[in-house]
């Protein structure tokens, strides 16, 4: 292989080569560049930007979980924010007693248990009916928190200030600290996500999505696969929930409401359902869209602001909704597809195909 970066076909000679995550040296190199870039990025950003970046990364983690449930296994989940909420409330309860690096997996595991419970109806029902069941769980979750005195009935449960290596994290470095924590967790779980499809479980997920009766006939257990998909996806959401709790310094029910579940689905779709890069692009796109629309709405308010009408408040939901609708109609494979096209363009440059 003289020029490994300029291959024209599949030259794999062993099974091991065929199953590597990153097929070419150029892919490995670009990954390293990307990771280093992400590590030094905070040096160039102000605190306010870091806050948005953190939020995007935390949402990306949750969306990866949703991609396991909805993208890989095809189980529409309108209750993902509730899983995140389970993780966040777990974090709020255990954080006073544990260091943060222990809180994260604990929150993930508790959320995974909740995910498995929610997944149980998937044993009997599917498609739209399952989607509606997850919607019901979301609403029941919100109600249950609202009626639990131990959880402040949905009011703020403060997270303790984090102490790391004897050093207390404060306002100035809060977002920088949680950026690195979130990033580390995200890299770890993204690798797991990427690896998932190469496992027996991952393949059975996709088989169950495409036709669960056929998967059943081929000796897979669709019921168990679905429940496990819910548990795994909820684990991601739970870890994200704990990170969100630390990041926002308190746990409040509105952060885990139906609206947020819908946002996650939108992020997954806009990013590209079932793709790893889509899990990043979706949250980034929709969050930045929202922030820019907010800025835009102040600008438009200066020009056009009739009494009784709040133009500013109209723009954000309008943009959010239009983004979903337009992507579904014109690019149902999401931003991940643009990314794919872009890459293949550069790989084949200067040739057209």
């Amino acid at each position, binding site marked *: 292989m003289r020029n490994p970066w300029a291959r024209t076909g599949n030259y794999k000679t062993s099974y091991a080569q065929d199953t590597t995550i990153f097929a070419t040296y150029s892919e490995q190199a670009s990954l390293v560049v990307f990771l280093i870039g992400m590590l030094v990025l905070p040096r160039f950003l102000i605190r306010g930007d870091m806050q948005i970046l953190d*939020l995007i990364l935390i949402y990306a983690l949750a969306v990866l979980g949703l991609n396991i449930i909805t993208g890989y296994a095809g189980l529409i989940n309108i209750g993902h924010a509730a899983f995140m909420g389970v993780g966040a409330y777990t974090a709020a309860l255990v954080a006073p007693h544990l260091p943060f690096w222990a809180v994260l997996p604990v929150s993930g595991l508790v959320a995974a248990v909740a995910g498995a419970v929610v997944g149980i109806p998937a044993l009997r029902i599917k498609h739209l009916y399952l989607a509606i069941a997850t919607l019901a769980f979301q609403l029941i979750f919100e109600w249950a928190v609202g009626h639990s005195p131990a959880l402040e009935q949905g009011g703020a449960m403060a997270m303790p200030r984090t102490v790391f290596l004897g050093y207390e994290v404060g306002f100035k470095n809060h977002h920088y600290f949680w950026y690195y924590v979130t990033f580390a967790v995200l890299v770890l779980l993204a690798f797991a996500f990427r690896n998932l499809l190469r496992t027996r479980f991952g393949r059975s997920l996709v088989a169950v999505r495409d036709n669960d009766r056929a998967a059943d006939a081929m000796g897979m257990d669709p019921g168990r696969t679905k429940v496990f998909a819910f548990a795994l996806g909820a684990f991601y959401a739970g870890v994200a929930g704990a990170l969100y709790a630390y990041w926002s310094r308190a746990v409040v029910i*509105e952060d885990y409401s139906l609206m947020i579940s819908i946002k996650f689905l939108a992020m997954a779709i806009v990013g590209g359902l079932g793709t790893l890069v889509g899990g990043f692009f979706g949250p980034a796109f929709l969050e930045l869209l929202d922030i820019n629309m907010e800025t835009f709405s102040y600008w438009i308010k200066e020009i056009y602001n009739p009494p009784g009408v*709040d133009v*500013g408040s109209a723009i954000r939901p309008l943009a959010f909704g239009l983004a979903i609708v337009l992507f579904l109609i014109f690019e149902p494979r999401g931003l991940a597809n643009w990314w794919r096209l872009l890459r293949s363009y550069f790989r084949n440059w200067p040739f057209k195909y």
Partner: protein
Amino acid sequence: MKNKWTLWALVAVLGLGFATAEKVHIMWSGAITGPTSDAGKYYAQGIEDYCSWANDTGYVAGVEFVCETRDDQYNNANTLRNFEEAVDRGDPVFLGYSTGGTLQLKPLVQEVGVPFIPASYHIGNIDPPDNDYVFLPIASYSEQVIAVLEYIAKVAPGAKVAMAIHPSPFGRAPVEDAKKAAAELGIQIVEVQEMAKGLDYTATLKRFENKGVQYIVYQNVAGPVANMIKDAKRLGLKIKHAGAHYAGGPDLLRLAGDAAEGFLWVTAYYMPHEDNAAAKFVKELGAKYGRPADAIESVHYPSGMLAAGIAIEAIKMAKAAGQKISPESTYEALLKMNWANKLAVGPVTYSKDDHVGVDQLRVLEAQKGTFVPVTEPFSSALFRKVHYGK
């Protein structure tokens, strides 16, 4: 050519004025859309208009206020983002909104030391811990509800009372204190019911009736309250209704019509139909900045004004003391504030131990489509007893 020179001089003076006017940002983050937005949208308008008024009249010499009202859709993540942006920009003071958002932000507010004035009058906002920088514009929900309970105990000794509250920390805020106060007053709180946004409250009302409830005390926003009192009227119940600041007001009269007759309401603000400076001021501003009638009449409009007013007043004090406008100087000013404002029934006073602005409240009753005060302004001694134990 003398005229020309005067003109140039005028331009120069104005230009100099603009050039030296210090821009001070004041941000409000609240629900213009989403839950409780029926209150939030007028609150935001009050802030905007008071700011414009302060700028237009040159209320604080050499300072131009840039007031931003941001719609956080009742979502704390948005509130947090807005607050941090304000802190990064070095805003001297921040105007908040929801109970949930305020409670969540408290530790951060404490850490960064930026004065925070919420629209939520939850007593928990100014209770320890992390309570140094939060300032309530008027007396808390707890005090409001206790004030109305005191009034009820006076007109109907030993009455049976039910509470109907918003299903949120905002709704639950006064419940504990109200229960303690009721025990002191010898009235009985039979039940505390959270009011979901239902189409029909028959079940709840009938149950209250069966339990012999005489008064329902609301801690909610006007929309659901209006529906519940309309249902009560339809069912022909003899139950009377009373509510804290956000439950009543002209909004309630508009929505509930006749059913609101006799509604007891506690607030610290003057009413638009009253013949006094406050009403005149509010109407003037509303007309000046083109607000529709329902905004001007809403109690949330002057509430927003008061919040903005407190912030602007503190900045004025800091400026007058010759200090640089900053969170620290604004905080110092707030602690010394004694502002005889013309929006509420009492002066806004703060000190190290007192983070409640207007300490006085009035009980009003809906009579023939307007709220008429039935008490003089007072502050509740019982509230201090049950809440602080003193």
